[in-house]
């Protein structure tokens, strides 16, 4: 299935801003995150089609997945 993955802030470094990617059925958000070499502990918000989602949420064909890092500096 095809999923549009959008990365934010320093998750873009060495990766991409937005990309349409192929995944097998039953792929979860955490599968995508880890597949991109991103440490789950560094992830702040994840959203599917502008709604908050969890790591274990299953992706569907045509979903837009946005992944934001925890930004904590002050």
């Amino acid at each position, binding site marked *: 299935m095809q999923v549009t993955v959008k990365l934010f802030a320093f998750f873009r470094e060495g990766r991409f801003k937005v990309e349409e990617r192929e995944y097998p059925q039953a792929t979860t958000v955490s599968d995508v995150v880890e597949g991109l070499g991103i440490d789950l502990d560094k992830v702040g918000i994840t959203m599917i089609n502008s709604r908050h989602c969890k790591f274990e949420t299953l992706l569907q064909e045509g979903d837009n997945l946005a992944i934001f890092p925890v*930004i*904590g500096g002050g």
Partner: protein
Amino acid sequence: MSLAARLREKSQDNILLFADALILAEQCNVDLLKLEQTALENNIWPERYQRHRDIFSPAQQHQLLVSIVAIVGCGGLGGQVFEEFIRLGVGRIIAIDPDCFAAHNLNRQLLCTVEELGRFKVQAAVRRARSVNPAVQVTPLAQSFSVDIHNEVRQAQVVIDCLDSVADRHELAEFCRSSRIPLVHGAVEKWFGQIGVQKKSNLIKNLYPQIPPQDKITIPSVLSCTVAAVASLQVAETIKLLLHLDSPLRDNWKSVDLLNCEIEALDAQP
């Protein structure tokens, strides 16, 4: 003669020169803040706010001068936010930070100078206000945000989150929610940041769903331009809250990316 009459006598074209304000405050035995407030109540602009005249009404500038805000964390974001508040004429600022300046703060923390190294950040804020806008009243609290200072912070109309710890942000956000004080959130790392306003929502808990374990906490690198950009957005949101102006950022947030020159609205729904 009343203070208002003295102000009218001294002003020209509804402008009160800064030097005259200092003299009048001394002659009339009133503090500079009260004098400037009285001037604006009489449609007289203190000279330092002359270039706000096409932006704010005298009543709005007066509203800023009678406002109380609390800045929690006076490092990068907090120092920049503080600087902009004193120049805007926010009348009273509660500045909270337990730390002293170290040389590694010099790259991005506006209140950190070579002279201030080793000194409390909140005391540097007091000195900065004295040199830029002596009318502003600063309450320095050289301690972490905790229950000990809840009563002090409850006086604020807006609290500005300039912290650098997720656990502390959770605690501050919960305090603001239960005290019904709007919280203006900002955070920075490298070229990136985020800005948000929490009024009734659980914005901070949504942004930081998990408190990272101690061994996973890293010290972020941050650029001065990222700090200034995000802090300026926090100040803009604070002005709008204090003056009851609309903003699309109520109970929402935006992602800031200076590397790609983007400010992205997410319109996130829980």
